[in-house]
């Protein structure tokens, strides 16, 4: 029991340590640069405690739940030997986790406002909701496509940088054709689609897949899925902006 308590305290401590840099930065700029007292100190301490508990629970849950199930599914699908099911699973995972992502919903609403302000669409609630929904579906489709492409790459053992280079070229070529208002949002949408829950699961999938296929190195071939998932939304969103 005391060993368990000690382990809990140790994870709590590491949670506090992870947060320490943010506290130091904000404290330094508040006191030394802006020269103002820190408001609501007790709320900040309470919040920091919540963050520390939350982070240690999250990391423990990853080891218990997300990592094992991601890997065991990857093994099982690789053993089943059906390419179609594997790719369908990859697509469902990418699409399903992205379409309901809270940050994406926020960004899509923001983008609709920009588009309405720029005269791209009519400035009415219906037109904005329509635009935002289309954008969400576009990004979710792009992440689904990215995971499918990434899984296919792991199976084939292609070097990751050829595909990334192709993606970069796509971004560069599309930029002049996309409306200027959408470019910043498109570039940002790549980063916001990958949430704290999707990332560990997708990583476990890639690594599990690469370790269950002969001749694939989990280090070289297993990573890279997240990279695709943050690149394709840029291309798809700019195409969406250009075609609308």
């Amino acid at each position, binding site marked *: 029991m005391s060993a368990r308590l000690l382990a809990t305290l140790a994870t709590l401590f590491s949670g506090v340590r992870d947060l320490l840099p943010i506290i130091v930065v904000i404290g330094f700029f508040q006191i030394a640069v802006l020269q103002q007292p820190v408001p609501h100190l007790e709320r900040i301490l309470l919040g920091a405690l919540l963050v520390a508990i939350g982070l240690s629970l999250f990391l423990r849950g990853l080891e218990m739940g997300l990592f094992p*199930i991601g890997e065991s599914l990857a093994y099982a699908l690789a053993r089943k030997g059906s390419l179609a099911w594997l790719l369908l699973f990859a697509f469902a995972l990418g699409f399903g986790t992205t379409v309901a992502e809270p940050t994406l919903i926020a960004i899509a609403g923001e983008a609709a406002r920009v588009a309405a302000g720029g005269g791209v669409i009519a400035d009415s609630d219906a037109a904005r909701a329509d635009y935002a929904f289309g954008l969400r579906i576009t990004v979710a489709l792009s992440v689904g496509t990215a995971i499918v492409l990434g899984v296919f790459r792991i199976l084939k053992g292609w070097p990751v940088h050829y595909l990334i280079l192709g993606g970069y070229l796509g971004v560069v070529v599309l930029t002049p054709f996309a409306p200027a208002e959408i470019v910043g949002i498109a570039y940002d949408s790549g980063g916001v689609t990958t949430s704290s829950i999707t990332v560990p699961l997708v990583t476990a999938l890639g690594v599990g897949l690469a370790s269950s296929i002969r001749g694939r190195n989990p280090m070289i071939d297993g990573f890279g899925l997240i990279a695709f998932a943050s690149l394709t939304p840029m291309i798809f969103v700019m195409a969406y902006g250009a075609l609308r």
Partner: protein
Amino acid sequence: MTELLARLADTALATLRDVLPLLAVLLGFQLWILRQPIPQLRRVLAGFGYVVVGLVLFLVGLEEALFPLGRLMARQLTDPAFLGIAGGVGTWSDYLWVYGFAAALAFASATAEPALIAVAMKANAVSGGAIGVRGLRVAVGLGAALGIALGTFRIVTGLPIHYFIMAIYAVIMVQTLYAPRMIIALAYDSGGVTTSTVTVPLVAALGLGLAGTIPGRDPVVDGFGLIAFVCSFPIMTVLGYAQLADWRARRAATRQPRREI
């Protein structure tokens, strides 16, 4: 107190909306396609519970403690009166405090990002300890810091974003040619993981605050795009970190045959 509880409920709902489709896909495939029971089902479900509860507490704690202060400071630091350029148009060098604050904040929040810790743990396990959790997190944090400093500089000067992004891509491509093969995929991944839950709200507040106070900048057009910098720079620093380790290992063992790091 009721406000705190309401926020807990809101965040729990948003996180559940995020998790439910994922759980549906996983269970659906496991039960209908593979037709297998899930090994250690109770443990896995408990793990999911931990992840959701942990993430909710983490987000609410940040929202309670640090985000309001971070946003307030982003506004104060970008205030023309504080920068000593009230009534006039400043040059890019009047904003040095802003770059410094942005870089320090990006470093601190990127290294605390749960998704980054998860990927670093996995990379550490897969590489048999050759890639250190702390080393990777610091490399990514440095990248985020450099990226955001350049991104805020771009907002201040108003230069078009795509020139910067193309230059960054060119550097990444050249680095890829010379970097150890083992690190490449992980480096590309480390761009996307920096911006999951901690960094985006703080960075977005900074970008919008900055674009809102500089004459001639449109908050919605120029305020966006900072996240793209935070996403692409860590790729360069992680590749650079591996190249440095590789170079030092080779220099230390010039007479021995080259070994993989």
